[in-house]
């Protein structure tokens, strides 16, 4: 059977890889990287934000025992019956599927040098470039090795000239937040990486600096400086510039040279290469699985009654020229086009619209919103509920988007990832988790339809 997946982020890639593993002939159409490529290294299934107003708690309020991530996932689904987790796990519990999904993801990414660290039995604490703590159940290689527990001493590595990392302020924040969660017993310090002259200019450009570290020349020049940073029992936390290509093993080299544990700090928008690495590793996994990848945009979807027959493609980029390409037939279509960053939902002529199929859109509370303007769906409290940022398509339990009548619009079309409605990944910290779980499920459902 032929399947077309639109969108190459974690959701689309998961769907495509599942389909491929079930013997389907898969074409993945991707216009450009999206939210996945902008993620910063943690894989949030239902991550706790105990230090944030309205965030998921770390511990059970009644017993005081730490909550397992799975339990938090249940809580998310219970609190919002329209959440994708509620849809996915209404009939079957998440425990098995989440374990399988994580194992599958790890297997897909491992050949590229990226692994999934952590477990779903226990939350770990990571630190970010601002010194803030992230409760991360799962995290990718780079930041994933930076579990704060089990380190007697923590040292932040100052890289002179590198923008985006104010080390003294980060130390202060880290100290305060560690005290707030009971990790205060560790010593904190700053160590400075003595950059040789030749590398100083490059430090101003994080991506270029990271790439240089993948190569022997820079490593040779830094050998002594890195070795000087190490100390027994110490965990070195470095700004997220340890290489661009995970397969080059820069973090491992750094750790080995320093002679103690070393990991990256979790990034922020201005300084995060983790998403870039994840995006490339997913692309490599798709190639290995024999998925045909096309850089392009879906111009039109061919429909016959309640079935999708195929898609018509165009060059990536804004719609400007009429498409002149042949139709790509398919037996199943998976939409993983994202929300605003990915372009799965856009505002045109002052109205929100799902551009490929004109599917009805629903906000956080489940109200139909596709004839409304974006600025009508925002509320005054930035940290509170924002209907706009929870907008997406509603689906049935098999992840088939619903039409205006509340029934699945097509028999063989499925949706996954940020395109799904009624959840706000920024606020509830479930973004990549929903992408992975709904992407795999969409692939499984598509293979079976």
């Amino acid at each position, binding site marked *: 059977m032929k399947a077309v997946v639109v969108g190459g982020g974690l959701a689309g890639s998961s769907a495509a890889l599942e389909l491929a593993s079930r013997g389907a002939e898969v074409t993945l159409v991707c216009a450009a990287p999206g939210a996945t490529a902008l993620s910063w290294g943690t894989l949030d299934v239902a991550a706790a934000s105990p230090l944030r107003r309205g965030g998921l708690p770390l511990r059970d309020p009644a017993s005081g025992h730490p909550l397992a991530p799975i339990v938090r996932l249940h809580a998310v689904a219970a609190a919002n019956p329209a959440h994708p987790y509620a849809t996915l796990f209404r009939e079957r519990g998440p425990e098995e599927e989440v374990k399988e999904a994580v194992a599958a993801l790890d297997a897909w990414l491992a050949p590229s040098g990226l692994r999934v660290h952590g477990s779903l039995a226990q939350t770990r604490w990571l630190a970010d470039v601002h010194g803030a703590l992230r409760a991360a159940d799962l995290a990718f290689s780079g930041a994933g090795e930076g579990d704060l527990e089990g380190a007697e001493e923590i040292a932040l590595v100052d890289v*002179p000239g590198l923008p985006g990392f104010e080390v003294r302020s980060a130390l202060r924040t880290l100290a305060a937040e560690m005290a707030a969660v009971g990790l205060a017993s560790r010593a904190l310090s700053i160590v400075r990486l003595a950059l040789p002259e030749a590398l100083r200019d490059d430090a*101003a450009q994080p991506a270029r600096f990271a790439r240089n570290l993948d190569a022997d020349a820079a490593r040779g020049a830094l050998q002594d400086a890195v070795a000087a940073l190490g100390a027994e029992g110490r965990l070195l936390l470095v700004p997220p510039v340890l290489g661009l290509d995970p397969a080059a093993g820069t973090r491992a080299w750094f750790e080995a040279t320093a002679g103690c544990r070393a990991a990256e700090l979790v990034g922020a928008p201005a300084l995060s290469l983790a998403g870039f690495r994840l995006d490339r590793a997913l692309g490599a996994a798709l190639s290995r699985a024999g998925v045909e990848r096309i850089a392009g945009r879906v111009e039109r979807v061919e429909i016959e009654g309640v079935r999708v027959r195929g898609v018509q493609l165009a060059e990536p980029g804004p719609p400007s020229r009429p498409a002149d390409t042949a139709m790509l037939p398919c037996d199943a279509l998976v939409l993983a086009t994202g929300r605003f960053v990915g372009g799965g939902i856009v505002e045109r002529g002052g109205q929100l619209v799902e551009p490929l199929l004109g599917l009805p859109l629903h906000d956080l509370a489940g109200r139909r919103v596709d004839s409304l303007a974006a*600025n009508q769906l925002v509320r005054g409290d930035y940290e509170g509920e924002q209907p706009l940022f929870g907008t997406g398509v509603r689906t049935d339990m098999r992840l088939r988007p619903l039409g205006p009548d509340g029934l699945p619009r097509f028999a063989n079309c499925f949706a996954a990832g940020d395109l799904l409605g009624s959840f706000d990944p*920024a606020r509830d910290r479930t973004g990549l988790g929903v992408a992975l779980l709904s992407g795999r499920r969409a692939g499984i459902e598509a293979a079976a339809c």
Partner: protein
Amino acid sequence: MSPCIRVPVLVVGGGINGAGIARDLALRGVRCALVERREFGSGTSWASSGMIHGGLRYLQKDPDVTLHSCVDSGAIQRIAPHLIFRIPFVMPVFPEDPIGPELVEIGLEMYDQYQPFKNGRSHTRLSRAEALRLEPALSPRLECAFTLDEWGVDAARLTAANALDAAERGAVVLTHTELVEWLREPGGGRVVGGRMRDRINGEEFVIEADVCMNAGGPWVPKLAALAGVEVRLRPGKGIHLVFERRVSNLAVYARGVDGRDMFTFPHEQNSMAGTTDDDFYGDLDRLEATEDEVAYVLQAMERSIPSIRRHRVTHTIQGVRPTLWGFGKNEDELSRDYVVVDHARDGAPGLFTIAGGKLAAYRLMAEDAADRLCTALGVREPGRSATTPLPGGDGALDVLATAKRFRTPVAAVVRLGFRHGTRTSQVLADHDTDLPMDGATAPRVVCACEPVLDAELRHVVTREGVRRLTDCTLRVRLGVGACQGAGCVGNAVAVLADALDWSAARCVEEVRAFVDERWRAVAPALGGSHLAAMEIHRHSFLAGRGFTS
């Protein structure tokens, strides 16, 4: 007993008028105290159109207003050449316009006679083809067009420059300090100062003064009422839309559905569209543009620039004009005149109020007010504000040499020049002193959109008295670009925390206040291609740097 400061003059209100008065007094050697509730110019001044225009529309009613505006515009150019930039205008005339092109041109020919006072250029007349060549974005329906010359200014920096000059010349200048109550002589008579509260650390203290000036802008009635005096204003709210970058090279006139004149004009890094004028009855401290205002402005602009809706609006700017009271008139027709009132006649001798006016005339207004205050004090010094340069305004900056010396990108130095003029070298020298001073470490970029360097942030904290992260929006244009702070605020607050010794909890508070302010400006106009950026913004602040509760 609370600590006490004694000065001849207390000026309450750090907008362009208050700052201008403080500076004028300082130049005359009269020591004063200037207190501002938030950040300099954060009330009305920063939200103005940011133009020191000559007042073309007053030619009909009162040419003297135009003359004074043009002369004063010339003065501002002399004292702060680094803060201003030319904005050429184009006025399209459409077949359905009520006023024909010949009349428009007569008006412009009259205005031409005033242009020399402000180094302005004469108008030109363009045929339809020429107009479309000069500005292709114009609506092709126009019958002809005219060009016109005006000057733009960074109003927030102009206000801050006045306040800083006053401080450098001996004035006591305090931000985030509010007036709790006026001090009266026993017997309820003369106003002799005020009790102040520092809004950041809560400390209260007293300022005793011989005369007091209420320069609170739209807050003038509230401050006057504290002294039992009534000052009537008709506050008029005005908004602008800010685009992500320039949408046209020239400023383009547009007419609203109700006939009001508006424009889309290039300003600093962007274009702005506005403005509105509506009687305001709401909360001055939590101003927000409404969807209606946004729609009104876009509708007007569409007439002159049909493609305007394709452009990305990042946020709005909003402020309330302290317009003098007038009954029965439309907001637009109210006088832009100003008044300096001596409240001796209202039973509060020692208290003066300044209200009304416009940004372009601030220096004249300040001089007039300072004259009145000096008369009351018996001081006979003449004003010098028209001839003494503001900080950074005493020459031209050599951009290339400075960029080379400090190993800073030229683009960054250009922007610094617009804010700090000749003091740019001093700014760049203020970068992180904890780093090895071997010349190989250069100032780092904190905000890519502007760009803002860590050196500039350190400078405004250590030498310009910046006390809060939100001050930086006005002082160095932090977070007003494409990313609205998503990529830079984390680092900006870290630089400030370093310099001001903020705790981690304080940092969170500052970031929260900053984001709150940004959101109020972004939400009303959110749409189109700005949605993706705000999605990232939200991830950055909620899923990323988690706020502690």
